[in-house]
């Protein structure tokens, strides 16, 4: 009986041991790549739990207040519809105490502050489809809507941002370089998101995926001496033939890359890649050997990706209106932007109602094209910065203004020219009244082309005194006033049917400038 018993025991032990070992081996090899068994997965859960608590403290001021607030009815969402949508652009979200600000990425702590502040201020994210519908003018979105985007398909942006998004219930779009994330090769990048992670992102319904090219996020050889330039906006130098690629080859190369990246998103992730982000924000404007790419690229991108994004330049309103989804603008959020700065940026770009009489003296309301702005004691000082010898500023949220009159008392402290702009859309579309010592010019630029200007030689004596200047834009008529008198007037190009307010100051000798603007009054005209 003992021998029989021993056989049973041996069998049991052998069975358990082998089964256990097999379980471990198979379990490990199966779960090694399982999303839920990755270190970062647990870190994300932990970050999420922490950020939930931090958010309650931040939003409600404490748990007691939070419990009380839960009982009360939720505030009704703003009913007014947004006239513009800001799109924020982030790259990596880095949770590493050794990391130092690098202009491109943002720290986890700072990102969290951004999102919490946005949530508390009432901002809500929208989806790509909503955005497209808005930009086509097909859909009204509530005020304080914005789109959140991340470039380069980096792991750290997902790991860092997702717990925060989950807390504040936001969605975001990840622009993936498909050649680095979705290629069929087994080579796993430690930096770029993997197929598995992207699938989980889509599954969470917090993330949408867009294209950031297949392999176009980098440099190619663009000259016989091995010069390098952006993949998308330059002609490639073909070393074996000692020539540049032809225009047709260029189109073929770009089109192929775009199509591949779209089909990879479709085939590997099973979602439609409807949007595209230009690598480095270069849609041809930064081309080194092929300026025509500026015209060609949108024509190649738009049929494949109805929605495309660039980065907003300094000389334009960084937000988007219902003017079509192609080449939409994004605000790049650099490392050092604080939550307060971010709110100020969005706030200053909110539509400013054109009432009968308004004073805009807060310096954060003004966007810097170049130079510096400062508001001191109800006066606005516009001057050059170290790097430029002139200055230009425009009023955020004034893009949709039509008929209005601008008055100001201008004192030139340094420099000898200044101008008021109305109907300002960007550096290529505006009208302005330029004042110098000897003349006043009504200048306009539309679609980047200078229109014939109207000028009047007049001794203005603008330097060294306080000058009352004003500019009036009404329908397609615009007039420049000095000390209450109409000096020049003319008709505007049809393109300039609306646009905001700007000031520019420069010096013909290039010695630096400062202008003080007081008693700024903007009047709505019928």
């Amino acid at each position, binding site marked *: *009986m*003992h021998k029989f*018993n*021993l056989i*049973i*025991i*041996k069998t*049991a*032990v*052998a069975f*358990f*041991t082998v089964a*256990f*070992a097999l379980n*471990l*081996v198979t*379990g*490990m090899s199966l*779960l*090694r790549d399982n999303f839920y*068994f*990755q*270190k970062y997965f647990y870190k994300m859960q932990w970050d999420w739990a922490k950020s939930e608590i931090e958010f309650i403290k931040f939003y409600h001021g404490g748990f007691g207040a939070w419990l009380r607030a839960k009982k009360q009815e939720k505030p009704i969402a703003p009913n007014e519809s947004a006239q513009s949508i800001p799109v924020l652009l982030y790259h990596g979200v880095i949770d590493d105490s050794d990391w130092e600000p690098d202009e491109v990425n943002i720290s986890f702590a700072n990102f969290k502050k951004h999102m919490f502040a946005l949530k508390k201020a009432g901002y809500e994210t929208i989806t790509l489809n909503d955005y497209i519908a808005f930009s086509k003018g097909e859909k009204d979105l509530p005020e304080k809507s914005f789109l959140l985007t991340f470039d380069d398909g980096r792991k750290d942006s997902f790991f860092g941002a997702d717990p925060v998004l989950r807390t504040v219930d936001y969605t975001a779009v990840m622009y993936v370089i498909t050649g680095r994330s979705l290629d069929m090769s087994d080579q796993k990048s430690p930096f770029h998101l993997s197929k598995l992670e992207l699938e989980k992102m889509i599954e969470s319904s917090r993330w949408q995926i867009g294209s950031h090219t297949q392999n176009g996020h980098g440099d190619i050889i663009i000259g016989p001496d091995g010069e390098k330039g952006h993949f998308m906006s330059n002609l490639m130098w073909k070393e074996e033939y000692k020539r540049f690629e032809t225009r047709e080859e260029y189109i073929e190369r770009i089109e192929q890359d775009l199509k591949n990246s779209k089909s990879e998103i479709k085939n590997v992730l099973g979602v439609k890649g409807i949007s595209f982000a230009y690598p480095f924000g270069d849609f041809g404007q930064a081309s080194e050997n092929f300026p025509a790419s500026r015209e060609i690229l949108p024509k190649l991108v738009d049929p494949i990706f109805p929605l495309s994004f660039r980065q907003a330049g300094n000389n334009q309103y960084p937000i988007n209106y219902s003017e079509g989804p192609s080449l939409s603008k994004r605000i790049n959020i650099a490392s050092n932007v604080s939550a307060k700065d971010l709110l100020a940026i969005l706030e200053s770009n909110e539509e400013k109602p054109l009432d009968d009489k308004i004073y805009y003296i807060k310096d954060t309301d003004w966007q810097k094209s170049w130079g510096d702005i400062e508001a001191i004691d109800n006066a606005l000082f516009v001057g050059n910065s170290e790097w430029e010898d002139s200055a230009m500023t425009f009023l955020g949220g004034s893009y949709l203004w039509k008929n209005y009159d601008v008055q100001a008392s201008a004192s030139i402290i340094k420099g000898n020219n200044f101008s008021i702009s109305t109907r300002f859309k960007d550096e290529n579309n505006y009208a302005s009244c330029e004042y110098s010592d000897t003349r006043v010019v009504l200048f306009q630029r539309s679609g980047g082309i200078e229109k014939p200007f109207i000028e009047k030689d007049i001794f203005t004596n603008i330097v060294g005194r306080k000058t009352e200047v004003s500019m009036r834009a009404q329908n397609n008529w615009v007039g420049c006033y000095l000390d209450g008198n109409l000096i020049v007037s003319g008709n505007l190009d049809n393109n300039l049917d609306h646009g905001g307010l700007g000031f520019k100051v420069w010096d013909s000798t290039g010695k630096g400038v400062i202008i003080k603007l007081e008693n700024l009054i903007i009047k709505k005209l019928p």
Partner: protein
Amino acid sequence: MNGTHNKIIGLDWSDLFYKSFIILSGLFLVFFVILFKSKTTTDFQLEPTFFSYAIFVTTFEVSRIISAMLYNSSFKSLLDESRPNKYPEKYQPNVAFVIPCLNEEEAISESITQCFKIDYPEDKLEVIVVNDGSTDNTETVISKLKNHYPRLRVISWPNQGKRWAMAAGFKLSNAEIVVQLDSDSQVDPDTFHELIAPFQNPEVSAVCALGKAKNADANVITKMQASYYFVSFRILKAAESTFNTVFCLSGCCSAYRKKDVMPVIYDWLSENFLGRPVTWGDDRSLTSWLLKAGKRTVYADKAIAYTVVPDSWKKLMKQQIRWKKSWIINALLTSRFIYKKQPFVALFYYFPLVAISFLTPFVAFHAMIYAPLMDGIMPMYHIIGIILLTALMVIYYRYLDKNDNYWPYLFLWSLLNLFFLSFIIAWAAIRIQDRGWGTRQA
């Protein structure tokens, strides 16, 4: 008899269920250890050894616990075999204690006295003390005791070594069962019959008692050893005993069937390694010779013996080096025959054990020294893994005896092992030709 069915199969199902629960909770724990450990090896393809090591060690420990859980069942069936027809109710064979001693003037007296306290027929119990050339007052102490216990037999000769002293006892006694007792150890008179009971089964050649640290409460070193003794007897030896193949019948107190020992006693006495006689490791070696002869060796969980454990780092280290040396030599000896005699045990226990004990120093070196210095990888996961494995042991430890309070020291012991003791085997291998005892003279 109630529960006959269970006894025949040897499995108590409700107990098994509880044990399975322990195993499962352990598995859960260990599973995570391994998953996390696999993350520290940045690339499996690069370091399969260290990856496999974790699986290997974990599996081994779990298989130990499972085997230990089946110990009671195996042991009971060994005793129950065909009783009551075959064996008399009161089994009391002739028993002889053999106590070799060398300069033990303080401890010897109690060791001998305890033997005479055993409730056993006088004519069937003899105590033989072999004074192996003591230079202190041992001789006097023994003489005094002889006056008190006339039945005490004393051999006194110049120093010959522990093995020869033991062998003399075997030869001299006429008893059927010879209990080998260290001079600093005592049997527990109340549980003595448990040590003898397994010999009812004629297949059993030797029985090892449960060794407990007598001076457990002295300091943290002895407390750690108390917890380690608990594990090494009640879990590891029990697991070995499940298959009637205990590999080391502890020197502190083990009983042998004389007629099974005598055929191998000269092989044992003349054991050589690399041309020099092996002076220590007598217990492990004698067990091996018995196993080689195809004998059964078991462990009696209820028979208790007390022994004095080293109470200073220096003594502990000397003892550990000696044990490791004897393990190295004995592993080579045993490996040569065990797969023929006990293929199951060899495959599932002995060879894995040998592999682990020789791999561990390398893995510990890699995790604790190489990786932190060369790759900047801190051994956090390795240490967590060791602690969790110990925790698994502790779960079963607590199940076995809820009143034993030394279990927290098992964690200390594991860490000591990790940081220090696992490297000692390397030192032991280097110094293998030094056959000195360290703690006592040969």
